[in-house]
């Protein structure tokens, strides 16, 4: 089970793009500020992974593309998972997870979908944990965080083993 591709519409610095990933070792590179970490933010966003650092946004609507004098009102990220080994309890080789943000007159809303059907965040996390995808994301190391596991207290570090056990 792996990430097949990421489809992004109006999320941070991406207007409309489909990003394919290799099943083994994909590297991403480019100049400062070109959007590399924003790709990670999109994955964290669509899977509802909570990181204390977040996605460098104060409120969800900050994640909607704005530039060239335009301020979009609707952002969407879809993650297509390759399910050919049947890890996730769904028919078919692909499972598509989607999340959007839509501005409204008095705020905004944000919904999650699996294969087009609306789901709650906890449903999504239950589904993902079957495939060993944890929602507290020890498998996601954000920029600047690599040595956190060393700087944290001995107690918190032992809790990592607790979570795995």
């Amino acid at each position, binding site marked *: 089970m792996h990430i097949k591709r990421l489809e992004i519409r109006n999320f941070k*610095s991406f207007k409309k*793009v489909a990003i394919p990933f290799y099943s*083994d070792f994909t*590297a*991403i590179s480019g100049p400062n500020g070109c959007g590399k970490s924003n790709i*990670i933010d999109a994955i964290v966003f669509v899977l509802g992974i909570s990181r204390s650092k977040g996605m460098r946004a104060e409120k969800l609507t900050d994640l909607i593309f704005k*530039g060239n004098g335009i301020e979009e009102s609707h952002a969407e990220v879809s993650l297509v998972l390759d399910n050919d080994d049947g890890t996730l309890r769904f028919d078919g080789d692909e499972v598509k997870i989607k999340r959007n943000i839509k501005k409204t007159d008095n705020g905004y809303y944000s919904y999650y979908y699996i294969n087009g059907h609306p789901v709650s965040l906890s449903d999504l996390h239950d589904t993902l944990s079957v495939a060993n995808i944890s929602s507290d994301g020890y498998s996601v190391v954000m920029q600047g965080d690599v040595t956190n596991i*060393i700087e944290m207290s001995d107690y918190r570090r032992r809790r990592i083993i*607790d979570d795995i056990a």
Partner: protein
Amino acid sequence: KREAFMNTFNGINENFKEIYGGLSGGSGELVLEDEEDPFNGGLWIRTMPEGKNMVQRLQAMSGGEKSLIALSLIFSAQKFQPSPFYIFDEVDMFLDGVNAGKVSSMIRSFSSDAQFIVISLRKKMLEGAHGVLGVTLMDGISHITGVRLN
């Protein structure tokens, strides 16, 4: 409950000794502060980096040494209980060229069991990947370019 914890701890520790040894050229291990009651204490990491001959305090380690220890722990946990994918954003920021190359090779060998998506500016890291996605910015909009297969 303690049994489940000790199983996990020992499994990950065995991996850590092997992986950290290979990556750093030195030796290291995980140590429980309270072996009798693990939940009463924390988790220590004891390391003797390459070229050093006395165990040094974790806090005194250099940026690169801490990075290797952290990555070894992630790989050790992954080997014990793999997640389907791992996403690393510039985990090589402190690594010198030699260590960036070692980490790149290690990711490549583990990538047969899990998917790795790695952001990096370092040539040594990019060289080990099966393919590189280039990202560029034009008129304030990000585009994906050149998908190169190694």
